[in-house]
């Protein structure tokens, strides 16, 4: 694939898409096809997904998006790895402490699938720069660690008319849902952005290794559903996963 791309002067993603259109499955996607089909894989390779935050949730999301075969990933994070990230942030290692998370994540994507295009921003997303950072994104996924930024992302997604996959964690529990521009969204849970709780309980109880991976994996499944059109995204419902009790609750939201 890579040599064809070089010879023909086109991107490796375009070669993969052309191959799939001919019914020829690049071996790396073989185990995807049974669930999402050739058309689903083509849609994913043609898609652009923005990941805001490359820490606990974001690192796992980026890893899975790369393996799933997402054509273009936008990675937004201005933070660097620290020792306390090692328990749960998949891309942190003893060797890359103090390095930018987004740079490490970009490198990781290229190691997994060199065909994937990555746009990297070493910035913190705000209401002021959201339009610039999320330009071209078809879906935005949440790897954030605070509520004001989540409200900024939701507002930006509404402005751009694209879905936002919300996720958050605390201890052995996590929450997620997909918010389309016409959905009620975060205000159903938190009220207006003027009255947000400063921090959640994770500040005290922390986040163990598995919790971000569980929520992140489900967020990626939401992205796959949104892009391929297979299945139904979790909309207008908040999914709360309690991994200690082994309970998944769905709260129907109304705005």
């Amino acid at each position, binding site marked *: 694939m890579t040599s064809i791309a070089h010879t023909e002067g086109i991107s490796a993603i375009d070669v993969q898409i052309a191959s799939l259109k001919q019914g020829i499955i690049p071996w790396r996607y073989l185990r995807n096809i049974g669930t999402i089909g050739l058309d689903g894989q083509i849609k994913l390779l043609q898609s652009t997904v923005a990941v805001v935050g490359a820490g*606990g949730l974001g690192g796992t999301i980026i890893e899975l998006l790369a393996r799933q075969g997402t054509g273009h990933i936008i990675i937004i994070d201005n933070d660097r790895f620290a020792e306390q990230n090692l328990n749960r942030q998949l891309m942190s290692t003893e060797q890359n402490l103090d390095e930018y998370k987004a740079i490490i994540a970009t490198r990781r994507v290229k190691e997994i699938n060199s065909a994937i295009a990555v746009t990297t921003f070493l910035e913190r997303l705000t209401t002021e720069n959201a339009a610039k950072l999320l330009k071209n994104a078809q879906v935005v996924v949440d790897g954030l660690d605070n509520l004001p930024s989540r409200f900024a992302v939701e507002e930006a997604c509404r402005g751009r008319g694209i879905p936002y996959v919300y996720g958050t964690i605390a201890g052995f529990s*996590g929450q997620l849902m997909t918010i389309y521009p016409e959905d009620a969204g975060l205000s159903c849970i*938190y009220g207006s952005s003027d009255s947000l709780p400063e*921090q959640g309980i994770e500040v005290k109880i922390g986040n163990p290794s598995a919790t*971000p991976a569980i929520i992140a994996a489900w967020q990626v499944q939401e992205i796959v559903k949104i892009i391929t059109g297979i299945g139904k995204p979790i909309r207008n419902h908040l999914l*709360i996963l309690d991994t200690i009790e082994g309970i998944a609750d769905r709260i129907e*939201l109304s705005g």
Partner: protein
Amino acid sequence: MSPITVRFYSLWRQYLGIDSISLDADNLEEALAQVEEKFGHRLRDQLKADGIQVTGKIQDYSLMLLNGTSLRCLKQTDLRDGDQLQIFPPATGG
């Protein structure tokens, strides 16, 4: 008086050891007062035992929805038969 259901989720359910209860109340203020009287002390003690200091009433450190809408967004606080008050801890980590 309207019979309503109060449901606890996630860590609050674990701490209180209860999934849901039924209450009779005419309005939200009455319901919240009953929730605080029945569970406030127990929840604060459990949190304290885990090193988490909270202040105020349950509604001050929890997320609370009435039928899927944040109490912070409600314009009227009368209750109707079958209403559900949903209570769980805020989580902002990633």
